[in-house]
């Protein structure tokens, strides 16, 4: 092709520039309504999410209400030194991570097993009935769960102390003051409450598997268990990996209600029920130790952020489609 360069006349350039400005103006007029539409949501995120991010700086301050938050003195890493010099930092980190690890493992394994069994139920009505009943605990608040907990664990009138333990020939247990039982209680309650939700997700994944695989396997004489092992589990593996990695990203966070409401904030149980979220809450609302509380919160935010990035990196390596970003 011949290289032809036409030198545009000056007037042409001016006209083009004018046109461009005009176009930009009309474009602005066009997109203005869009910006107005988006404004409430964006402003909300600014207030609810971004302002607190900057507010994390208070972890480096010695908050003194008399001086105001902005006027309080900067103290560098002092709050962190305090936090990590106590036993608390270790206990809450240990509890948060250990509980989450057990929750992730146990809930995943049991939810998959239950989802596979739900898929075996051919009677549609029964299937939907089972699913609804198992999902019921997901619908109620942790305050109600705390009430249910009392019905079981109340020292004087709980069904465990009054009916079940005597039947087994065991002595009464003072549930709300003996910390050693709580790892089991919390794991069980978390399973009870979260099982239905995970089941729904895994069942949806199982239903999505191509039926032809099973037909072919049946023709080849594969047993039900072999089909589960060689077809079902491998097919839903991407979902399992994705959900697990997402939970690992949140391993530094816990369900505040589970650890605060259900043990009824009982001080005797802190050794096994205190997690980062409850520690931050108590520091802020009950002890008034804002500096320490903010330091623990910043610690959680930063490590949590790193873990999200890390787990997303791992998901991305496994399958790009499932990555969050």
């Amino acid at each position, binding site marked *: 092709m011949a290289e032809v360069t036409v030198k545009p006349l000056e007037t042409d350039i001016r006209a083009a520039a004018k046109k461009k400005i005009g176009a930009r103006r009309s*474009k602005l007029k066009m997109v203005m309504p*869009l910006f107005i*539409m*988006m404004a*409430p*949501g964006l402003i*909300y*995120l600014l207030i*609810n*999410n971004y*302002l*607190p*991010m*900057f*507010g994390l700086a*208070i*972890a480096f301050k010695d908050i003194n209400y008399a001086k105001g*938050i902005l006027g309080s003195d900067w103290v560098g890493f002092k709050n962190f030194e305090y936090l990590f010099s106590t036993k608390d930092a270790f206990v809450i980190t240990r509890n948060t991570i250990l509980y989450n690890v057990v929750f992730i493992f146990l809930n995943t394994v049991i939810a998959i097993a239950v989802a596979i*069994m739900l898929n*075996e*139920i*051919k009677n549609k009505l029964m299937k939907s009935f*089972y*699913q*609804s*009943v198992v*999902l*019921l605990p997901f*619908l109620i*608040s942790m*305050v*109600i769960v*705390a*009430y*249910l907990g*009392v019905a079981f664990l*109340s020292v*004087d*009138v*709980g*069904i465990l*102390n009054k*009916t079940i333990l005597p039947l087994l020939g065991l002595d009464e247990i003072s549930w709300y003051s003996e910390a050693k039982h709580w790892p089991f209680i919390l794991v069980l309650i978390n399973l*009870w409450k979260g099982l239905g*939700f995970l089941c729904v997700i895994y069942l949806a994944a199982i239903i999505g598997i191509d039926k032809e695989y099973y037909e072919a396997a049946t023709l080849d*004489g594969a*047993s*039900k*268990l072999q089909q589960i092992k060689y077809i079902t589990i491998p097919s839903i593996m991407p979902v399992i990996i994705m959900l697990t990695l997402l939970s690992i990203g949140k391993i530094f966070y816990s369900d505040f209600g589970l650890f605060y409401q259900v043990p*009824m904030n009982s001080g005797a149980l802190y050794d096994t029920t205190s997690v980062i979220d409850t520690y931050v*809450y108590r*520091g*802020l609302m009950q002890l008034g130790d*804002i500096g320490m509380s*903010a330091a623990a*919160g*910043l610690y*959680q935010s930063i490590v949590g*952020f790193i873990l999200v990035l890390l787990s997303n990196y791992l998901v991305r390596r496994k399958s790009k489609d*499932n990555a969050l970003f």
Partner: protein
Amino acid sequence: MYKSDRIMSGVSHIVLIILSIGSIFPFIILLSSSFSSEASILKDGYNLFPKEFSFAAYEYLLDNSSQILRAYGITVFVTVFGTFVSLIMTSLLAYGLSRRDLPYRNFFAFFVFFTLLFNGGLVPTYLVYTEIFDLKNTIWALIVPGLLMNGFNVLLMRVFFMTSIPEPVIESARMDGAGEFRTFFSIILPLSLPILATIGLLQTIIYWNDWFNGLIYVTDPQLFSIQNLLNRMLADIQFLANNSFGGNISVASIEFPSTSVKMAIAVIGILPIVVAYPFFQKYLVKGIAVGSVKG
């Protein structure tokens, strides 16, 4: 091979029946205890069936129903208003982000997305809402902090707009002279009912069940939602029992059927959700599955 089918299905039924019983067992104890007489609970504890049937707990709650009704009113208002505003804000923002001709589209998308990755946590959030916005002990404290809108739902809805609403629809609306707002409210929203229903249902449950905002921002009993009332009753009845520990247990328990009332108030707290559950169960299951697929 057919035999293995039948064994598998039989085992599944048995396991699922056991699980179902396990799931509702606590609720049955709750219900039965709320209908038990105080004396029978104190003697035999909470039970699966009432040993001595009694309405005393509900009579007590009926006599003191003004606070409960008020709390219900607060919860209903917060739930309806919060869910409505939440849907409007979420869909408006998501719609803007879904438009391919939006300038700085990537910047705005990242602005929303980053809120999912990093957050300031409780302390700064609390200070923002109490020190800057003075939300403490107002009804807005139950609606605005944390719950009103979240980035995940925005991105979920954006995916819906981008995949389920063909661009020519928007294009032709513009040709016909409809402005952005008109296009959005009379064309986009009616086409988006499935996703609006899904997110609306989840938001409704979240608002109905929320006690956290009330716990940290509200100390005025006049503003207690039903969850906050439940929360306070749990602590206060405990407080009552602790106080009577020193001596007159009998006096406290005669005046006030505390053990059965505790269960009755919880029954009242879950009743609306359990009654409505069969009707929205199908949508809830769909909503959970949609939400998990891709955010």
